[in-house]
């Protein structure tokens, strides 16, 4: 029974990683950049929802929508100011700019909202489903997170594969130059990707803080890095891979704590990651790209 209950804890932690990883992998797959500021957009999303629902007493759904709108706008502004001017620059330059953006968001949040933690009231409610006379419990937050994850994943896959914009996104991801020649506006496509990624970040922020309710300006940083790890684990750029990678990472983390030692759990998680990548160098579902001279 304790195994099952650990498994459930693992899945609920993993589902939070997964939902963050979806945003990461979406941006990476198309814009080919590691957006280190993603975790901080999540934090902003959570703050917006917190203020909307707690301070101004709005309905949680309105709070979530509001934070999605704000984050989308924020994503567009960030892209316009910091990333768009660097479309032709080396990938590393964009990476450093993203890190600068991450510092900027964290420090702005601290100045605006102070660093004293806020306790986020779950938008879903604190209840849980009890099984086997209460020996096992699955919280509503976990259920909603998993459902939202799957819905977003399917939605993204359909969007990327079936719509016209999705098609141009795939084209941009394959070959920017050729896509441009075919009349695709590469700049707009990438900006759109950021907008979608940021909207996903808002949802992730709300769900992250519903599950683990302490909200500070650095809330997004560590889950951001873990989610990045999850995205790589599943094969970065692969949308189903992000989901699987996230959930597996959560399960491994909880199992390492429960069955080995709580002291070294992070080290164990990363060790498993290394082993997986050595065996499968492009992650679980990553595409192997053949190299040409």
């Amino acid at each position, binding site marked *: 029974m304790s195994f099952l209950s650990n498994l459930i804890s693992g899945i609920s932690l993993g589902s939070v990683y997964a939902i963050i990883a979806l945003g990461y992998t979406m941006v990476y797959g198309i814009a080919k950049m590691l957006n280190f500021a993603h975790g901080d957009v999540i934090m902003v999303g959570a703050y917006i929802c917190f203020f909307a629902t707690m301070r101004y007493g709005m309905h949680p759904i309105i709070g979530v929508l509001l934070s999605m709108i704000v984050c989308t706008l924020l994503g567009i502004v960030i892209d316009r100011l910091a990333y768009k001017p660097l479309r032709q620059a080396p990938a590393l330059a964009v990476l450093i700019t993203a890190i600068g953006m991450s510092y*900027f968001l964290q420090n*702005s949040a601290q100045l605006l909202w102070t660093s004293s933690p806020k306790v986020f009231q779950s938008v879903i409610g604190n209840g849980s489903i009890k099984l086997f006379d209460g020996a096992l419990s699955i919280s509503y937050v976990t259920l909603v997170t998993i459902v939202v994850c799957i819905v977003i994943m399917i939605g993204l896959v359909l969007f990327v594969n079936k719509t016209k914009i999705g098609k141009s996104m795939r084209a941009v991801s394959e070959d920017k130059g050729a896509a441009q020649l075919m009349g695709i506006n590469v700049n707009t496509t990438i900006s759109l990707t950021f907008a979608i990624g940021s909207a996903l970040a808002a949802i992730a922020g709300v769900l992250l803080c519903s599950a683990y309710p302490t909200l500070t300006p650095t809330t997004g940083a560590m889950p951001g890095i873990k989610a990045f*790890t999850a995205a*790589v684990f599943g094969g970065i750029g692969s949308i189903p891979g992000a989901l699987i990678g996230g959930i597996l990472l959560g399960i491994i983390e909880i199992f390492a704590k429960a069955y080995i030692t709580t002291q070294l759990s992070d*080290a164990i998680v990363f060790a498993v*990651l290394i082993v997986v990548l*050595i065996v499968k*160098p492009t992650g679980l579902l990553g595409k192997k790209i053949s190299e040409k*001279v």
Partner: protein
Amino acid sequence: MKLKTMNKTTRSNMITYAMVIIAFVIVQIMLGTGNISSRLQGQLVPICAYIVMAISLNLTVGVLGELSLGHAGFMSAGAFSGIVVASCLSQNTSNEILVLVLSMLVGGVVAAIVGVIVGVPVLRLSGDYLAIVTLAFGEIIKGIVNNLYVGLDGSGLHISLIKNTLQMDGGKVLINGPMGLTGIPRIASFTVGFILIMVCLFVIFNLVNSKSGRAIMALRDNKIAAQSVGINITNYKLMAFVISAAMAGMAGVLFAANFSTVVASKFDFNTSILILVFVVLGGLGNMRGSIIAATVLTVLPEVLRSFSDYRMLVYAVVLIVMMLATNNPTLKNGLNLAWSKIAGLFRKNTEKGEQANV
């Protein structure tokens, strides 16, 4: 005159050496005349350590062309092993320089060994996958050091992991798990830091201009082409990676020996990223750029203290603006134009000056 007849790389290298030496002399004069703020004086050794970190990471990222996000891990391995040695030695000898040099050597060797352990599996990967594995190793090193207990008493060293089970007979605890190193003999000096920078520069410049260096750069520019002319990928990659790790280890010892305490969480992902920022801002493969960027970005947050609460915000903005200014084509052209104008003015002035002199 001789400077003009030298080939371009040698000349550039000489300028870099000269720059470091001049900076050293200026600082020494400032120290000698007491014309230096305590703040800057306190930062001298950390600046040296960060410069060595930056040029060593530049060897991995700029010369070898592989992104590493775990460079602070090597710094940590070097710092903790080196300081343990320094603590042991300083009980027997009072020659601080000797202790520091020996412990730096040990720190370098330990970091190099860790470099081999990390490098063998990691270097089979490439690109972002390699980056994430180096990040993972950095975190693993942090996790292990965080749970490491090392004590020294009459009967020698005691080591335990996870639980503090040291059977100590008096003596003192050197590494105390999460509390890290405390009571470090503060033996680091600016002069040793300066010498370390010079040695590292010498090693890197000579490596880059050697047969091995050219092989490494060929790997960076086109792996398959390099492979097809018979370059052994793994060996050369590992070579650059391990040299880089060893230098980071030595920088770690220098850094730690400047403070009375160092904890494992100091050498985390954020520190690795900070070093990477130095490298990218200074220019990939450009050692002089790394040195300058490391200095500027280490001093900058302190200078920004007058902005008080807005300090780190300003730092972030400066970082973004610097990246845009150096990488955006439009801004770059604008800067070029401004630069040539300034240079033009300057040239005119000097010409005038020369005429006046005549």
